[in-house]
């Protein structure tokens, strides 16, 4: 078999606990986004669009839905006889059994997977960012600079820089300094969590890191600084385009809203780099006689008879007449009954909202999003305020109190 020039290792292990109810039963990369996507569709589609056809997905937290979603990789054209997408879970070796202890350890445990394809370069990705990127251009940059490690960076606003890993750069784009979530950032170039390593260097530093008892086995905290301190050739590749970390309820909501508008901040209708996703064979969506849909996106399988404004509606959602949805994200197969009013909310999949119920409040900003769990049945005539998390306990408590 041929060796591969570059393979990708996708860190999909995160529980994503700041997404609360959305990641109770699923891993963060399996969270829905933009009507028909899961977060992981973005790095997977980026890979195949960049000509990288071998992707190892490392996961250990609630992998079932992710495994099922990825399946044989067919939706992303990653169902290959040689290469393609593979789920890499922790396993028992002859003597020991280990869960992944950190992002670096996860890749360390799968070094034999990398060795099998014997690539010259390894692309390390994480599964919690929304963006379209041509990794091929970054790889060409890495090769041209004879770099050992190249880190993709994006310019962030000065006031937000302290939330990121910040890189100071020389004019030739080589890295002169690192700051992890600095109080006084020296630059506004933030790491996107996208790395290209030359394989031998990656292997060397992963083995060193594994032997280092003080290491937390994390890429950003341990491996990258170790390489930097040893004076390896490290460059930053400047990315220009839309990029968003969707690690919180607010940022997930914001990223969904970024899809709306006449000229959306993040344009999915660009056919040069299409994002692929698993398809559910839903019929086209139907818009009723009295429906009002403005500044929104609607996905296949929906039946919209009410009003939808500034919202993202996923596959198979029913919005009955008289219902009004504003500034909200409704996930797959929800049923919104007559005269329901929803504002500034995220409703997870398969939830049914009884008629006349009011969820959330009209507001000006993204704070105080109301979050509704999946597979809930919300009774009629309820009133759910803004900024709450609604699960079955919440429902039974609040309806029990009423009766």
């Amino acid at each position, binding site marked *: 078999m041929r060796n591969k020039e570059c393979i990708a290792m996708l860190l999909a292990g995160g529980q994503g606990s700041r997404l609360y109810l959305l990641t109770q039963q699923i891993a963060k990369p399996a969270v829905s986004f*933009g*009507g*028909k996507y899961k977060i992981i569709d973005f790095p997977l589609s980026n890979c195949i669009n960049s000509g990288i056809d071998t992707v190892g997905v490392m996961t250990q937290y609630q992998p079932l839905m992710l495994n099922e979603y990825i399946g044989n990789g*067919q*939706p992303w054209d990653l*169902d290959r006889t040689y290469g393609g997408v593979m789920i890499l879970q922790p396993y028992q070796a002859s003597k020991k059994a280990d869960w992944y202890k950190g992002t670096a350890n996860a890749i360390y445990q799968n070094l034999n997977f990398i060795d099998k394809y014997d690539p010259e370069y390894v692309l390390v990705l994480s599964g919690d960012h929304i963006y379209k990127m041509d990794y091929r251009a970054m790889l060409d940059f890495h090769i041209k600079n004879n770099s050992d490690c190249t880190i993709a960076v994006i310019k962030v606003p000065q006031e937000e820089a302290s939330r990121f890993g910040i890189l100071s750069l020389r004019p030739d784009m080589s890295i002169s300094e690192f700051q992890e979530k600095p109080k006084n950032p020296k630059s506004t170039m933030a790491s996107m969590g996208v790395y290209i390593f030359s394989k031998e260097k990656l292997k060397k530093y992963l083995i060193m890191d594994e032997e280092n008892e003080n290491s937390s086995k994390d890429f950003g905290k341990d491996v990258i600084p170790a390489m930097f301190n040893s004076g390896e050739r490290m460059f930053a590749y400047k990315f220009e385009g839309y990029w968003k970390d969707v690690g919180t309820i607010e940022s997930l909501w914001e990223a969904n809203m970024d*899809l*709306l*508008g*006449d000229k*959306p901040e993040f344009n*999915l*209708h660009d056919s040069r780099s*299409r*994002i*692929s*996703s698993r*398809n*559910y*064979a*839903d*019929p*086209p*969506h*139907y*818009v*009723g*006689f*009295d*429906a*009002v*849909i*403005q*500044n*929104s*996106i*609607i*996905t*296949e399988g929906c*039946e919209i008879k009410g009003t939808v404004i500034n919202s*993202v*509606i996923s596959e198979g959602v029913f919005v009955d007449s008289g219902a009004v949805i504003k500034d909200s994200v409704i996930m797959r197969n929800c049923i919104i009954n007559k005269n329901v009013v929803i504002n500034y909310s995220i409703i997870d999949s398969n939830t049914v909202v009884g008629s006349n119920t009011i969820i959330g409040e009209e507001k000006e900003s993204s704070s105080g999003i109301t979050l509704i769990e999946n597979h809930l049945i919300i009774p009629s005539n309820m009133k759910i305020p803004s900024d709450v998390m609604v699960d079955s306990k919440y429902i039974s408590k609040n309806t029990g109190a009423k009766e």
Partner: protein
Amino acid sequence: MSTAGIIFSNIHDENISELTRMRTMASVPFGCRYRFIDFALSNMVNSEIYNVGVITHYNYQSLMDHIGTGKDWDLSRRSGGIKILPPFITAYAGEHKLYTTRLEALKGIYTYLQSLTDDYVVLCDCDVVCNIDLRDIIEYHIEIKSNLTIAVKQVYIVKNTMDDTEIIESDENGRITDILTAPFFESGYKDINLNICVFTRSYLLKVISDSIVHNHSHLSFDILQKNIKKERYRVYKYKGYFARISSIKDYFRHSMDLLNSEVRTELFRVKNRPIYTKVRNSPPAQYTQTAKVSNSLIADGCIIEGIVENSILFRGVKVNKNAYIKNSILMQDTLCGDNVDLNCIITDKNVVIRDGRILSGHETLPFVIGKNGIV
């Protein structure tokens, strides 16, 4: 009770020649995101028929593009799966004659049918829109030990308005008593042939080899009508939604049927029997601030800035600001410029309607704009 499927992709091309100039009937777009063959194929897959041959003739590149690897119907397999059966592939077709009837087509794939190991064969045309559980017909066929079971549906026929639809008469036991291929009788309720039938394979092979020997060419005229008395031909009475497209008027009317919620439910919302199609990975439809849509079906990939009423929009259609689309069917990637006004229009793929154009057909004669047309 293993069953193979055969789909005729070209038989009725001439009926809607406006849309089949560059493609087979099978690959004519229908219902926002489907091609006709999706209904036949999905019915087979949903009825656990995983070995499907598609008989083609000419103009089948778009069909091959649509089917691709077959993965979208889960029919990309080492054994079985979906196979295109083009002309010139078998010994019989050695003279490079192209077939014109179902029976001629079946003669051309005689060796293919011989090579199957399945006991039964389902034959299906491509101008048929329905969601039918073929297992019911096959089980009935086996139970009554039929040689040929034809699915029929009772509909009201108006005198002298018939196209080439066949009427099938049967007795109280479901035994076929007559097949009328060109009926001009009085109006009334009749069982029409859905062109979906189950053959016992051994009997089908016998019929075809007989036809080769005797140079028969038409299944109904030359075989069925002659043998009605002595062979076990039965009807299966189907009661669900069914549309057959035999003219551009039919095409328009049955497309508009989909705006009816009951039709959509019967076609698309049957548990465990979705209609599959080629996945195009379009993003969801985008409505801007100025969009105004009512009683319409909209596919993924559309961008709507204007007004859309009583219409069917396929994937990737763009309706610009102040455009007013009503009673129209716009196929994939149609672009409607600013201030366009359309009524009773069918656009084929990639049509561009320039800013300000006003076009109007009539529901009895919709105005069809050909593929890649620019108006």
